[in-house]
């Protein structure tokens, strides 16, 4: 075999690809729904924290800021390993999937809290006063007047962060979750061929290039209209 044929055989081997395809497709599904789980819980918790912070209770806000700082500085892979290798020893058994979901949701909640909070803080004080003077309660003002404006400011930074964290589902491969990368790595060791890895890379591109393009569009759109 020439070196060209050898490369073709180890990276684009059709018979390996045929065998591995069902596994990779199943893994794609796992990656997508793990990502969706994380996005829903992460953004919901982040929003709740930002709203809580808007009430200006000092002792509570101290812990919210500490929470956000901690989860924005600790790398996702460290957090996933900490939960996966630590919790069983403390008497809590937890699956790799649950670890990845929990760790990445905690991180996304921290970043989205910061984004929503930046939006709330940037909203003109007059908006608060106007809302309160029409007889709305503090919470009603926050929900119906401040939040819609804050969300508009938050959406651009939130989009790129959310995409980044969805890609972070690949870290789950380290704790034995058979998502795209994990599945490809185990197939690599079975077939002793690099084709599954190439398929994994292609699968990520198919899933995430449209998401990145949509993200770019959203970022640009909300960058201008929000100002």
């Amino acid at each position, binding site marked *: 075999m020439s070196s060209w044929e050898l490369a073709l055989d180890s990276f684009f081997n059709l018979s390996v690809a045929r065998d591995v395809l069902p596994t990779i497709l199943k893994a794609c599904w796992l990656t997508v729904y793990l990502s969706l789980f994380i996005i829903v819980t992460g953004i919901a918790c982040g929003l709740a924290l930002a709203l809580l912070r808007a009430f200006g209770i000092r002792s509570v806000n101290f812990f919210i800021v500490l929470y956000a700082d901690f989860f924005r500085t600790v*790398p996702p892979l460290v957090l996933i390993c*900490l939960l996966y290798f630590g919790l069983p020893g403390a008497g809590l058994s937890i699956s790799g999937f649950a670890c990845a979901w929990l760790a990445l949701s905690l991180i996304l909640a921290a*970043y989205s809290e910061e984004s929503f909070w930046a939006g709330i803080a940037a909203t003109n004080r007059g908006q608060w006063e106007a809302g309160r003077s029409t007889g709305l309660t503090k919470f009603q003002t926050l929900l119906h007047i401040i939040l819609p404006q804050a969300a508009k400011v938050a959406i651009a930074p939130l989009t790129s962060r959310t995409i980044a964290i969805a890609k972070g589902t690949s870290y789950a491969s380290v704790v034995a979750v058979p998502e795209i990368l994990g599945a490809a790595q185990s197939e690599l060791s079975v077939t002793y061929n690099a084709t599954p890895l190439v398929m994994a890379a292609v699968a990520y591109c198919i899933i995430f290039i449209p998401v990145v393009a949509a993200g770019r569009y959203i970022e640009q759109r909300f960058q201008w209209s929000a100002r």
Partner: protein
Amino acid sequence: MSFASQFLNLEILAGAWPILLLGAKSTLLFSLVGIPLAVVTGLVLALLSFSRSRTLFALQRVWVDLFRALPPLVLVVLLYSGLPFAGVELTPFAAVTLTFILNLGAYFCEVFRAGLSSVPRGQSEAARSTGMTGPQTLVYVLLPQATRNVLPELISNVIEGVKLSTIGAVVAMPELLFQARQAQNLTFNATPIFAAAMIYFIALLPFVRLLSTLENSVSSGRGGKPLSAGH
């Protein structure tokens, strides 16, 4: 076993400390190599995006979109476990460095591109009319303004870069997470990983605080472009 003895066991911490320090040093050294390389790559790519050549422009666009879509962990595994099939054996250090250049470089490119587009055209025209050459205009007039405009995004990317170096653990590069995992394997206790998390937290906290301050002053000031990266 209780939480305290599993996550905050001082005896185990004392034993693991020298290894953790070694790992922290290695993470710091790697960050000092990998991040500047990514910054330079991003800057060059950003300049290509203003190029009149269609080929160079297309190259830049494909690079950025491809490596923003591909998770860095996939990239490093592909380089480290995939390339040997083509007869190319990379050291862990080389594989992680290359991943930084490809992935983090793409994110820095987006930031510099936003920064350079935010500088008014007249600045470059004025600089050229005073007799400055193209490169002089770039270095003395455009880049300082561009950098100032996207400073929060640049800092954010540096923080993400330090955190990204943990992918080295997967390819046996002896950085902080790898060393913590080794210690955890030997002791069957998660204290070393918790200590590693605290080291990242303490080391990066000043940067995150600085970022929050900058972002708040930016959102009340000139209207920032939230274009920061993450991986």
